[in-house]
């Protein structure tokens, strides 16, 4: 009677979901390579490096947004420290990229440039094995997960929730940022890691490498969505939202919320770390400002703008906000913060379900016509 897991995973997406994923995958795997590599730059359909980098970056952000939505939208836990896990994934992978530079750095040393600059004679112990891609890939998954697990275990066990939890996560990422700013921590201090040359012995700036990274990001996003979709439609997902809505009831029917929250929390951190690891080779730099409080809160606004509690919402939100950001920072840099600030206020005041909610409200509004006005009047009166 039991349906195999793979089939259930496949059924997580409905036909529309699979169609959409197929289109995205086809774009990333077929259209992008052709349009970037084969078409000459003067062809109007040619995709520029700038475009590939920007969209690749946003694809990584979208993974983070889905991860955030998993714990915030479904679990009711607002983290203001998710930038930390993203950055940790990026730093872990950055170590590998630094080792790949080899002796091509400005000091022609086996050590990364910043270590030579600090007059270090050998690598710190935690850099051991960082020249192995597999080991670093393991680090990307394990280190942020471990930190998330330990932190989450103690926080959830003490029943820290709501804004308290948000503030504590904010302090966590802030403390980590201060730590990474120090040169002695061994991660390049202020400047972080940059000037990467190679990845798996291929040039990191080569068009082919970019296309592959882009495709990987797109596939990772589809995978994240599939996993998230499976989770939220499973019994686990129902318990998670039940904890969000009435935690004490969940406890009194015999579930321990600690483990349910911790699972979502740790998984979310791991997804962020994967996104971070894909992000760093595409943008070519990672530094402690990725851990800043502001960055982590911005993740929340992607989710809020798109619509939390839905899975497509965060993806839409991540794209909208970040496209707006790159447009503003080029055209009107001084107005970006005005726009972002207003967005925070407007999204919370007028878009409780984000643009996805707005869309479905508009559609039902067209169907129901007059009823909406009545409901709105009631809402205003309450």
């Amino acid at each position, binding site marked *: 009677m039991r349906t195999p897991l793979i089939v259930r995973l496949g059924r997580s997406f409905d036909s529309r979901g699979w169609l959409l994923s197929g289109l995205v995958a086809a774009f990333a795997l077929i259209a992008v390579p052709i349009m970037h590599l084969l078409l000459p730059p003067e062809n109007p359909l040619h995709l520029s490096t700038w475009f590939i980098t920007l969209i690749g970056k946003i694809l990584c952000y979208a993974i983070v947004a889905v991860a955030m939505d998993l714990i915030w939208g479904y679990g009711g836990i607002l983290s203001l420290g998710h930038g930390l896990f993203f950055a940790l994934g990026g730093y872990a992978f950055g170590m590998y990229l630094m080792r790949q530079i080899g002796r091509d750095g400005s000091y022609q040393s086996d050590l990364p440039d910043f270590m030579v600059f600090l007059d270090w004679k050998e690598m710190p112990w935690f850099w051991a094995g960082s020249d192995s891609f597999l080991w670093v890939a393991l680090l990307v998954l394990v280190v942020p997960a471990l930190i998330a697990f330990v932190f989450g275990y103690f926080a959830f066990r003490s029943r820290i929730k709501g804004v308290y939890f948000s503030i504590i996560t904010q302090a966590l990422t802030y403390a980590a940022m201060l730590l990474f700013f120090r040169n002695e921590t061994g991660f390049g201090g202020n400047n972080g890691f940059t000037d990467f040359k190679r990845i798996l012995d291929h040039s990191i700036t080569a068009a082919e490498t970019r296309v592959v990274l882009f495709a990987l990001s797109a596939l990772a996003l589809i995978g994240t969505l599939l996993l998230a979709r499976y989770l939220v439609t499973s*019994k*686990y997902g129902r318990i998670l939202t039940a904890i969000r*809505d009435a935690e004490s*009831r969940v406890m009194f*029917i*015999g579930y321990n919320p600690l483990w349910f929250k911790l699972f979502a929390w740790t998984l979310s951190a791991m997804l962020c770390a994967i996104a971070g690891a894909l992000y760093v080779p595409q943008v070519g730099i990672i530094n402690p400002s990725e851990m800043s409080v502001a960055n982590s809160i911005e993740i929340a606004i992607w989710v809020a703008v798109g619509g939390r509690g839905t899975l497509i919402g965060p993806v839409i939100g991540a794209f909208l906000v970040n496209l707006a950001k790159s447009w503003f920072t080029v055209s009107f840099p001084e107005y970006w913060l005005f726009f972002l600030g207003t967005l925070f206020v407007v999204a919370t005041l007028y878009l409780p379900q984000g643009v996805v909610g707005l869309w479905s409200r508009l559609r039902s509004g067209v169907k129901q016509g007059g009823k909406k006005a009545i409901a709105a009047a009631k809402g205003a009166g309450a």
Partner: protein
Amino acid sequence: MNAVDSLLDARDNPDWDSGTAELGHVLKPGKLDLSHKVILYLEDITVTFDGFRALNKLSLTIDAGELRCIIGPNGAGKTTMMDVITGKTRPDEGTVFFGQTIDLTRLSEPEIAHIGVGRKFQKPTIFENHTVFENLELAMKTDKRVRHSLFAQLDAAASDRIAETLRLIRLDTHGKRLAGLLSHGQKQWLEIGMLLMQEPKLLLLDEPVAGMTDEETERTGELFLSLAGRHSLVVVEHDMAFVKQLGSKVTVLHEGSVLAEGTLEEVQADARVIEVYLGR
């Protein structure tokens, strides 16, 4: 991850390795032992909040299969008593035993729920964004660990049980509705239904008929009476007509301790009870 089981196994039950062996039965740790026909012992429970004594040396025993009503004026400590039994509040002093062997003061809320104590809150607490069906599904007695929930699939037997409970609480036509859309009385019923899905040995019901129509109240009474015997029930209620309908033993709480105990008539005739309720 199997917090409940491992904790229960490891727990050193005070009665289990000494003293009770000559009573002639084998004790299993973590299993409810009803050999003395008593399901719940509360002994000398004291709970203080910032100097205010919510419970004051409260002692109470509930027999297996018994239906017990608890009445008392506001602030008598009824809700605090339930908090102590279900592990939400730890007593400053005193012991709470579930059967002969299980010390409830050492278990967490989910653990207590898992070994068979169900609780209904004063204000109906259900999962408003889930359907009625899902509410019951989540409450159903099963493996409640994360690992299980990740891969759980509903089998036919379970679906049948949920359907059965839906009929019992008269929500069989509402299975697919969001629970938040139910009426107040229906929410009360749903919560009772969730309790039943847990298959608890002991049910704690805090004002279960508040906000129900007279007809609903009467049906609830019938349901409780039919449950007694298989389950033990503790009902906290203000509605004297309902208490009368249940016709069970009544305990009167006042200022955190037991003031009187007996049938409703006996209790109502008690001079001290009259004084507490009506004043001097």
